[in-house]
């Protein structure tokens, strides 16, 4: 049996450091919002092995007043040109000019989002995350309503949320770093991944809490720390296995799936890993420390009463 309560000091340090790094990167680098958040346009061309002059493209765009454009290769034979949002009229003119010079080039994809849509998406994303968190706390408080000793049911909810914050901070921080180093942007898929991580990692936490709940009922005499330790140990296999099946499909998606899902899958993979880790090493130990804190306060109070 592994003594998780004992090793918690180490894992707190590890998690604390990781979350700190994540938050610092987030503050320093910030996240690089993708086009669907900021508004803008992307034109993807299939080159058909034509060597295209980037300066020419820049000039064409400039002609219509689009100053800040970025040109980047996409795939083996593609080119993606990004700029601020473009009206359809100008889009047609730009395409015509490019085609006049490079006849073989084909238009693969064109997107243009006004800034309104982006703002909306951003607001909705934040609302979505807050809503999920609130719903999960409420649900956990409800699900654990029969448990009142030694901890009230809402303690379970709040502890789960603390470990959820840990779980989504780490991938978010990683994307801040990736954004800085590699120019990786976050899009609506990233938000979806975060929300899914919230759902999944609470899944593992529930397995452990559920066992604690049951053990408290069946073994009322046991010390709380012992209940914790036994519960974590007994549920260890299933926590890891349920995540492992998810990791298997995520790895398949990461390795064999389409490139456009790469970062989405990566976010999920990291989130799943830390979600499992935190439900074992963080969530229950936190609950235990909270319990110790409450005990100490209670003893102190009782001591004061005795003194009088």
């Amino acid at each position: 049996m592994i003594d998780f309560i004992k090793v918690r000091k180490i894992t707190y340090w590890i998690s604390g450091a990781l979350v700190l790094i994540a938050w610092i990167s987030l503050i320093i680098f910030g996240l690089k919002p993708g086009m669907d958040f900021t508004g803008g346009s992307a034109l993807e061309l299939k080159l058909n092995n034509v060597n295209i002059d980037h300066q020419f493209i820049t000039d064409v765009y400039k002609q219509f007043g689009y100053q800040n454009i970025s040109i980047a290769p996409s795939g083996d034979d593609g080119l993606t040109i990004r700029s601020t949002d473009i009206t359809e009229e100008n889009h047609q003119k730009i395409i015509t000019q490019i085609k006049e010079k490079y006849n073989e080039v084909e238009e693969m994809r064109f997107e243009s989002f006004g800034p309104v849509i982006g703002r909306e998406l951003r607001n909705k994303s934040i609302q979505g995350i807050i809503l999920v968190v609130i719903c999960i706390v409420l649900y956990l408080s409800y699900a654990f309503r029969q448990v009142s000793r030694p901890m009230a049911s809402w303690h379970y909810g709040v502890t789960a949320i603390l470990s959820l914050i840990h779980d989504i901070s780490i991938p978010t921080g990683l994307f801040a770093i990736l954004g800085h180093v590699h120019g990786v942007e976050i899009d609506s898929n990233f938000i979806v991944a975060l929300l899914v991580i919230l759902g999944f990692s609470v899944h593992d936490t529930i397995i452990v809490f559920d066992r604690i709940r049951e053990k408290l009922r069946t073994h009322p005499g046991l010390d709380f720390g012992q209940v914790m330790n036994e519960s974590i140990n007994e549920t260890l296999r299933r926590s890891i296995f349920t995540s492992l099946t998810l990791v298997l499909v995520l790895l398949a998606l990461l390795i064999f799936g389409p490139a456009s899902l790469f970062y989405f899958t990566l976010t999920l993979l990291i989130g799943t890993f830390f979600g499992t880790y935190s439900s074992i090493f963080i969530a229950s130990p936190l609950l235990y420390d909270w319990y110790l804190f409450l005990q100490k306060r209670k003893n102190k109070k009782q001591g004061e009463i005795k003194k009088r």
Partner: protein
Amino acid sequence: MKENSKNLLIVIIILIVAIIAGLFAYGELDFLPNWFKKPYRLGLDLSGGTRLIYEADLSQVAEADRDSAMNGLRDVIERRVNLFGVSEPRVEVVQVGDSYRLNVELAGVKDINQAIQMIGETPYLEFREQRPQEETEKILEEQKNNNPEYQFVDPYFVPSQPPLTGKYLKTARLDFDPRTYEPVVSLEFNDEGAKIFAELTQKNVGKVLAIYLDGQPISLPVVQEEITEGKAQITGKFTADEAKKLVENLNAGALPVPIKLISQQSIGALQGEFFLKLSIKAGVIGLIAVIIFMLVMYGKLGIFSSLALIIYTILNLAIFKLIPVTMSLSGIAGFILSIGMAVDANILIFERYREERKIGLENKRALFEGFKRAWPSIRDSNISTIITCLVLYNFTSSMVKGFALTLLIGVVTSMFTAITVTRSLLKAFIK
């Protein structure tokens, strides 16, 4: 013995349902009825096509009438798009805060320009009244002074009060003026429109009642007398062809409110096909990996959960096809993810079984005790995922919706297959 044959019967029913669902999900065998061959509904990112988002200007529409105005707008645009033979166009009204949007998805339409034309060509017809002389002068003066506030104000005409727009049009017809032989477009209003038209003509005798199309004046007739029968004529300077086209467009439906394009997307089909193939490959590999994992970890029990997992995959695909769920790339990702989650309930049950065995329960008892005892944590963890899905579905973005929906269907189906199907299989085959 009786109990045993009952269990066997349930298993046979499950297998028959799974086989039918499988044939339906696959759908490409010659002997199958046509209904089975219905294709999956692919999202724009997989089928290729165009997505346009319009914002409707409802400033002239009373609050209470906005929903019906938007529905009218949707119907008109749907008719328009159908006219061009787009297969399964999707036109939906989305309300975001105070603004109303129209989300138009045209699968298979690659040429975004053509798509915009096809929607935009629907003319917005309206009647405008002459402004008082002093107002006109004031606006012209301000425009001369480059006052930005007045830059886009029409100095001569103002939308009629009450508004008379294409919404009230009954039919439009191409006629020729009997004297000049010039083509004219005859308009006939519906009852409500006729009333408004009578009011306007009575109010404006001797003045110009301008006819505007898409914000441009096309005819500036002077009202001679009140017109009560609800008929008007546009005598612009157009050719017979132009007049004919105008009539067609007006009849297909004039837009009840003006719209503005705020977002556009076009996706090539080639890319989508490639992505689809990769996703399917990843899904199959993931499925096999999970099956191997279950077999290695749980041996004989793993066989049953793997069978349940395959049934799960088949059932889900059949449900996607049946509803039909729009399969976008993220939707497929959601489905693949749910394959990894579908065995979770089995793992919880089997782990519980191991524990019950340890404390000395005999095999079969331990197994069904496992089912019973694992239920609370299966329920709680699935509900948390369902909560996430419901929140995600609240997003307007159709891409995210697809993901949420497939994941939600997956979670619900997996509760059925991992628990009911696995239990039935075990009951029938474990002695």
